[in-house]
């Protein structure tokens, strides 16, 4: 999402850098989202649907 403007880019080509606090928060939100997805898929899908069906 590049519309938001320049990032704090360090030297060299690598984009691996120290994350800002809000960036860590976004990753945590994504992790929580994926846990919710896993829980829903488990509860409504795999727990009731034996493999391979």
């Amino acid at each position: 999402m590049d519309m938001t403007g320049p990032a704090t880019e360090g030297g060299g080509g690598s984009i691996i850098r120290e994350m800002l606090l809000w960036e860590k928060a976004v990753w945590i939100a994504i992790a929580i989202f994926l846990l919710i997805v896993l829980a829903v898929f488990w509860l409504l899908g795999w727990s009731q649907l034996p493999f391979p069906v």
Partner: protein
Amino acid sequence: MGLSMKKVPALIIALIIYLVILLLLIIPQQGGLVSSTEGHVSAVANASYQETLPIQLVDLGSQGRSIFIAFVMILHILLANLYLGGSWVAVATESIHLRNRKPRLRRLARSVTLFNVILFSVGATFAVAGMLFFISLYPVFASEAFHIYWWPLFLEALAFGAEVFFLYGYWFSWDKIGNRWHQFLGYGFAVSVFIQTFLINTLAAGMLSPGSDQISWGSTGLLTMAPATILAWWFNATLWVLTFHRLAASVSFFGFLLAMLGMFHYLDRKDDASRTYWDLVGSYGLSWGLLGLIAQPLIGIIYMYTIFRNQVASFASIMLGGRAWEMLLMVALLSALFLSVLIYLYDRKEKVIRLPGNERLHTLFLVFLGVASACGFILVQPAITALGVNPLGYMSYKLVALFILIVIGAIVLGIDILMLRVPEMVEWGKLSPTSRQAGILAGLIGISIVAVMGFVRESARSPWLINGIIPVPGMQDYPTPIGAYQIFVVWGILITLVVVIFWFTSKVTAEHPEQAEAV
């Protein structure tokens, strides 16, 4: 680069081949050419509600009425989704602009809002046309349904009023009132559209999962049924999940539409400033599209489970029976959409991810592309073929594939927003053919998937207008849903039509940069 150049054509060819297989093999083998009416002969014949007025024909064959309704309502949905999703994109874009003061964000927020202003009346017109067609073509259904849903529909009319106030207030007060009040109007528009969608969904969801197995009228009064009964009709089983699924789908739809229109403007404009801007808009739209896309399968699973618990016959029809091909088509489009986004991001940010130090990121993208392709291959497998059960089509495997696609989408979204936020390292305004093709393809598939989703929900309850209670009048002489080949024609006309409408409207509403700005 050579390999990268071929990814979009390869994806398009794979999609076309699958569509041919679907049409020629899967649909006939799964009973997709047999109407649901034919499969419910006795139930329809024994229904308490039968049409008493003569059937109004429209000169399009025995399914003409259904084709009329499908055309009008799917077109309405494609327009209504502009407001449900576009309102959030517009006001959120303005919010970001107010934080970082980038002129391009203000320009985009204004363009998106004017786009909504112009097309709002078109969407509303088709909504009203749809209602009129319901009354004319299905009078028993219309009188019963509009009677049951009087209060939600009345509130919806008020919500329409609020939408008009907020949308036009938001647009016409730009730069004339303070930022906080302007944001209030913008978010007011987004929330009022959501509420209006929720209210009309009481009826739309209630047709699939009615609150009772019969219509039990009470006496004259403010509530014409027992309170508990009428509340069960309004707040029926699939109301909330349908509403949130539509919200996620609309955000996704609008994001991909923005990406596609950005690519069109890029091709249409020759000056560097405009090309840089529309390149950035394409990237921005793809991010919104991906955000909505990863939410859809999650809500979709809850939706399907809710249908399974409440309307098992409809669930069986769309998952295992004669309508199962529609779900296959939907997941095929969903998979192609994920792949389009991955190809776009890989190609557009290739310069960054190929730099020394980013090797692992580059490898990760390639792995994601390979795994997502494999997931798509699993998802499009029919469970039953002429040769018997297809082991690759097991639902448990498909759930794994769907889950993996969501994981990939969420991680890629995070990488795009957080790690690839290095605009100065990308040559904006220099889009490769692959990126352009992927952006346009994502927009076209984003539009197509909305049209297919709408049809899946409607055909799930066929041959009923209100599931299990009011049948489509005319019984076996007027079978539903619309035949597989006919609905592809309807979709083709609709998609072509809305692309033309969106493009020409966008030509009018787009604000192009007068001079290049620093990225």
